[in-house]
């Protein structure tokens, strides 16, 4: 069974339901919220100092963290629904070597997450830039800065989607998988930082921020990972549930 054929089939699975449209709507909503913040929001003192520099605006546009979470949920639903609806049966009939099918699914979900992450970053960039030009500061982010934010969001979207899909395949239940993503991205990282402050630069949100070209200094962080290390460690966050998905799928009966 050709891996490319399996990948194509998995992409078609993702694009033949309304789920991606629902996530695009969420992304558009996030972009609109950001645009509203820029247009009408103020600091406590009534000023708009929070968008007064290019770095401030890039920080506002940075979509990596959002991409991780939103695409994590996308992946969780995509991974779990295969088992909820039993459609995994057809896949495993065509590809009884299940590892190949899981690899194709994770690859397709990663591609989907990258597209959603990119779309989210672009929608946010459009919203923020459109609103910023109506303010006294104008739009101050360089083209390179916008590109950095978009590329980071694409990468974080792919990673989030794989993490979510891995959990979805293991849990085989959309509700459980969504809960797992929230735990993995929003509950466990702060607990890790509580246990050891050294973990702070390595939790997903900090890594996404790093990749988006934003310094963590403003947030009071003493250390920040390098870009290469951030890429590698973020991949590790997705590798763990992916390996669990491969092992679980190979060992379990399809029900």
């Amino acid at each position: 069974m050709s891996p490319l054929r399996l990948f194509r089939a998995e992409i078609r699975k993702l694009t033949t339901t309304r789920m991606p449209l629902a996530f695009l709507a969420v992304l558009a909503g996030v972009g609109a919220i950001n645009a509203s913040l820029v247009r009408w929001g103020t600091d406590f003192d009534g000023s708009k100092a929070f968008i007064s520099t290019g770095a401030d605006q890039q920080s506002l546009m940075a979509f990596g963290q959002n991409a991780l979470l939103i695409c994590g949920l996308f992946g969780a639903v995509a991974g779990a629904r295969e088992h909820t609806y039993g459609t995994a049966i057809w896949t495993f009939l065509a590809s009884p070597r299940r590892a190949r099918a899981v690899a194709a699914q994770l690859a397709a979900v990663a591609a989907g997450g990258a597209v959603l992450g990119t779309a989210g970053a672009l929608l946010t960039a459009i919203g923020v830039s459109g609103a910023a030009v109506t303010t006294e500061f104008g739009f101050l982010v360089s083209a390179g800065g916008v590109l950095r934010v978009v590329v980071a969001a694409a990468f974080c979207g792919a990673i989030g989607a794989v993490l979510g899909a891995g959990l979805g395949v293991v849990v085989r239940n959309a509700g459980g998988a969504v809960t797992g993503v929230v735990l993995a991205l929003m509950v466990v990282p702060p607990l890790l930082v509580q246990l050891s402050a050294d973990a702070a630069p390595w939790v997903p949100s900090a890594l996404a921020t790093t990749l988006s070209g934003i310094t963590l200094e403003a947030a009071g962080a003493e250390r920040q990972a390098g870009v290469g290390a951030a890429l590698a460690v973020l991949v590790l966050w997705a590798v763990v549930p992916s390996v669990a998905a491969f092992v679980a799928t190979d060992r379990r009966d399809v029900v």
Partner: protein
Amino acid sequence: MVVAGAVGTPSGPPPIPIEVDGLTKRYGSHLALDDLSFVARAGRVTGFLGPNGSGKTTTMKVMLDLASADGGGATIGGTRYRDLPDPTSVVGALVESNAFHPGRSGRNQLRILADVDGLDAERVDEVLETVGLGGAADRPVGGYSLGMRQRLGLGCALLGDPPVLILDEPANGLDPKGIREMRDLLRARAAAGGTTLVSSHLLAEVELLADDVVVVDRGRLVAEGALDDLRTETVAVRCSDPSRLASILEGAGANVNRDGGELSVQGLSEEETGRLAFDAGIVIHRLHAESGTLEERFLRWTATAGEASR
């Protein structure tokens, strides 16, 4: 559903039997399959029968590598399913009639499988017509009736035009016309040399459809063979000395039940029974093979297996 022949019959396949050998499967302490062995032959439709929970679906899932066996195994043409290089071009399977995303159209469901199999959109259209879903192909499966989902499942199984079909309760939810069309389709494929294993609760339908039957109960084989042979397996005898003839027949390995002056013999043919009586000098008053409906036989087989297991 278009009657078979124009589309979807295997084109001169080599004979590919399904062989199950000593299959054993446990779910915790529950023994779902107990050393089950049988063969579904090429060019035949084999009915796979058993009460609810007897292990039919589990057997099919193990055959298709959707479930693992604790002992024994199953092969298709001598090869394990997972070792088939392009499995869906050899085996078409329907094991779960409702395994579809409700928001996806029937056409897209088939196109996904066509992508995996490397088939084009024309084949998808062809199969949709074959199973009678051409008009509903672009509607979400969530709006399909049970019968329509069953047709879609059958379409998925037929997509790769495989010579072997393994179908779990394919007639569930089909209307009489659909059942008739499915029967004609499966008969045509068998006539073309294909191998078909069909589980069903509809015994009357199996009588019309199957050449052979395999009956399981509590995971064990209780009967296997050509349907006609199994239906006429009992020989009824009236004779001058029933007690002596019963002893002789039991000595020859038969299972004999006495019903007043009549003996009911299982395990020997009419000819063998008559020969043994003749050799013993016992006068036969009446001797004939008893036919029964498949339902009568099925209830007897499963009742006997139930008693044996108690």
